[in-house]
């Protein structure tokens, strides 16, 4: 997509066109575009001089790469050991119920993406979730409710106008 294109162009400028930089490129595109579109992957693999298949298998191998656009807000639930012992799995289930998607998916309205991560190193405060990179600690059902409500309120402003997006 065109306006992504110049971002990617810029990113490709950062690294020499060698296979060893493939992961760097993918990471930067992921960071700046939120996901890796087929177009982006084509450009990258050509720049890094690897067949698109390799770029694709790398992108699918590592967890941190997404191939579909992400929702506007990302909720990541920590499932490290400490969090697991304190019921991390239940938090995931709770969120799945609330957003009615399964972990890894994005809501219809592209508002939320729910992911589970291994350990974010805040074991002392388990269970932990990250909402758009911000730590929310000692999570309970009520807290989840609050957090989601707050975000939805932010959006109340422009969900009118019969837009289908």
């Amino acid at each position, binding site marked *: 997509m*065109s306006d992504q294109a110049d971002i990617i162009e810029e990113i490709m400028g950062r690294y020499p066109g060698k296979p060893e930089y493939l992961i760097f490129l993918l990471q930067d595109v992921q960071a700046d575009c939120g996901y890796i579109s087929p177009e982006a992957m084509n450009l990258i693999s*050509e720049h890094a001089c690897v067949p698109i298949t390799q770029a694709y298998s790398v992108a699918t191998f590592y967890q941190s790469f997404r191939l579909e656009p992400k929702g506007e807000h990302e909720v990541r639930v920590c499932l490290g050991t400490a969090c697991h012992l304190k019921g991390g799995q239940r938090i995931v289930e709770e969120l799945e119920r609330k957003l009615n998607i399964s972990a890894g998916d994005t809501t219809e309205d592209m508002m939320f993406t729910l992911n589970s991560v291994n350990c974010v190193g805040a074991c002392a405060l388990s269970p932990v979730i990250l909402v758009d990179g911000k730590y929310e600690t000692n999570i309970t059902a009520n807290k989840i409710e609050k957090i989601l409500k707050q975000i939805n309120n932010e959006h109340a402003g*422009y969900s009118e106008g*019969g837009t289908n997006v």
Partner: protein
Amino acid sequence: MNDKPKIGVFICKCGQKIDPFIDLSAMKVTVSKTDDVTCCEVLPYPCLEPGMTEIIKSIKEKEVNRLVVAGCESRLMLKKFEKRLESEGLKKGQIDVVNLRGHVAAVSDLSPKEKAEKGARLVNASIAEMRALHPSIQQNVHIEHPPMILGGGVASFTAAQELARKGIECYLSIPETDPDIILQQLYQKYLGERSNYPRLKKIIEDVLKNDRVTILPETEIVSLSGITGDYSAALTVPGELNRKRYQVGTIIACLDGELTAPGPEFGYDGKTVLCQTDLENIIYNAVIPSGQTVFWINDYETGQEEYARLSTRSAWTMSRHILENSKKSQVIILYNQKMSLPLTASERSLSRKLGIIWVPYDKAVQPVIQLGFVSFGGVNDHLEHEIPWDRIVLSPIRKIGGNSMQTAKILGIIHEESEFLGVHHAKVRPEMVGREESYLAGSARYSCDLNEALNQGKQAGKKNAEMYQKSAENTLFAPRVVCIVDTTKCVGCGQCQEICDCGGIGIAEGLGGGIPRVVDPMVCTGGGTCAAACPYQALTLQNNTNDQREARVGELAKQLKNNEFVAFACSWAGLPAADNAGNRGLNYNPDIHIIGIPCVGQIDPSVMARAFVDGAPGLLLVGCDPENCHHSFGVDHAWSRVNILKKLFTLCGFDRRRITMAHADLNHPEDFVKTVESFSKMLKALGPIEKTPDNQKKLESIYKLVKTNSRVRLLLSSGLRRPWEATYRGDQRYALEYDRSDFMDALKEELLKVRLEGIFREESRPFDLDEIISKVVDDQNRIINQLSELVAEGAIERTYKQGKPFYLSAN
């Protein structure tokens, strides 16, 4: 090199897969007796390191210079042997792998003894081919002249930039050199790309002031001759006559497509019902219109649904521009529910902020534009909704631009007439192509956004630069199997050039017929139908010559008993199907003896005839489905050749079914089995060809006819299917007319002539007319005509005894 063939044969036990099924020791005995076989071993695994060590030993000690491995699929194994043994002096082409496991061991319930015999036959055939091989090494290609970028598309600039970056000077033929004007006109080719203009402008300026890039005044190519590395291109300024020649090494074609307004059926009037191109022109160059703008993404309705996403992107960027710059406007975007919106999360939230309204409509009902209203079916309620509009904006119609098609034809890079040039993708292994036949970039291939076009240009430049670097390092090689022209034989009839599907055959220099043709080794994919088509046999395939084929098929045919027959299987369909049948242990009639060849299209009719001369009762050719031939039309060409032999068979009173075409798919070995079964069943019914001298003479004359008679060969090749011509003489759809045409008479005459020559060659005594007629059963007038022609040619003499004409050989 390798003057006297010393052939090493290695037979594989392949664990338990071959050994118990075939009596290998017996096979070894038979094979060892064959001439030129200097060593013959049975190994557990020739393909593994221990085996390789043995082979290398034989090369070192017994000076083996040809290698035949009887093991499994050559498609898989050949490369490994070539890789491993190249350093040992066995250059490519000197190794052949016979699929003992897949074609003999696994596929029938013959006794090990019988299988050993069959195996030996196949191996001997391969040995015969090896014997006839005159290895020719890969051609080393050099590029002296600079590359030329033409076509005038935007991609030209990135291509030039990339070349310059790599330190390569190039010609750039471009109609407009003022960046601003280029950008001003760009919206007619690429929509909603304003955000990229600054970048593009930088590139253009960078290229224009780059001293490695030479800008040419001429912008229209009128002719191209020569081969990669040494082209001569004639260019003119549009509308002028005097042309200028440039010596160029390679050519990059950058062609842009065109965006045009949809027809009246969508109510286009250019005022209130606009095309996106019009709107972009207005909103960026004039004022932003107020009121309600309704974009209708109508690509589904114009039958270009694959471009709906592109149109949506441009609609999105324009709506953004409108709403960001004018308070008094609203935007609604109406799109077919079949399409998923190509927007990222951030764009979605932005569009929400701007208040752009996206409305999907029911795919079952086409929206209707009425005065002031557009009505459409709701996605969920299937109710007719209506939206008021101040202006409707439609998607453009996308098609290939102005004279792109013409240019592409001259460059020989176009394959079929279509709305876009498409991406030609030679479906062959990369090692078989020197390079993509020409670098083609821009939205004339298929409509794309500006960025992709630029990127295509960049890639073309990159690939091109790589070639120049290789050539500089002396490491630019043509593929192993390419066609070569014997210029002493070539009369420049141009048949080969017309039927070549890879655009690999060109004119040495200048224009027109009569001039010997040349093959561009970097473009040729070794399909070889040209070689089989040449009336004067001026073309041959390196390491893959007709003589080799004839030797192989002949050798095989000689050994065949009663109903056993030969089959050519092409390496893209027939051979894989056979291999897979072997893998899956499917049983089929053991009468078949398979010879793998790259494409059935490269089998010369003489090779087919040869099989029968040497005693084969039948010949089967297994190729791809016509639509999926990897060498475009190889199968069709093979069909035409098989067909002419069928005709000749009928003329000589043989059953025309003895030679037959079949089609296979690599993934359906079970179908291949059926093919084999029914063909061998039919042959059994026919029985072998009676070995009478007369039959033999007939067969030989057929062979002689198709091999040497240039009139017939010319007729044949002129009837072959042309890559980019809708109709041609031999078109199967008009087969009947073709049969009724003068073509058949010609065939009859020439056949008769050959047979008459035969008679006089045998005995130098005079014959009278009746005797001749009794020998060649044919129409009397035709015989007399032919005889007098022979007399005219001075091949025979006519004498009279008691007023009765006698004919005898001239010498």
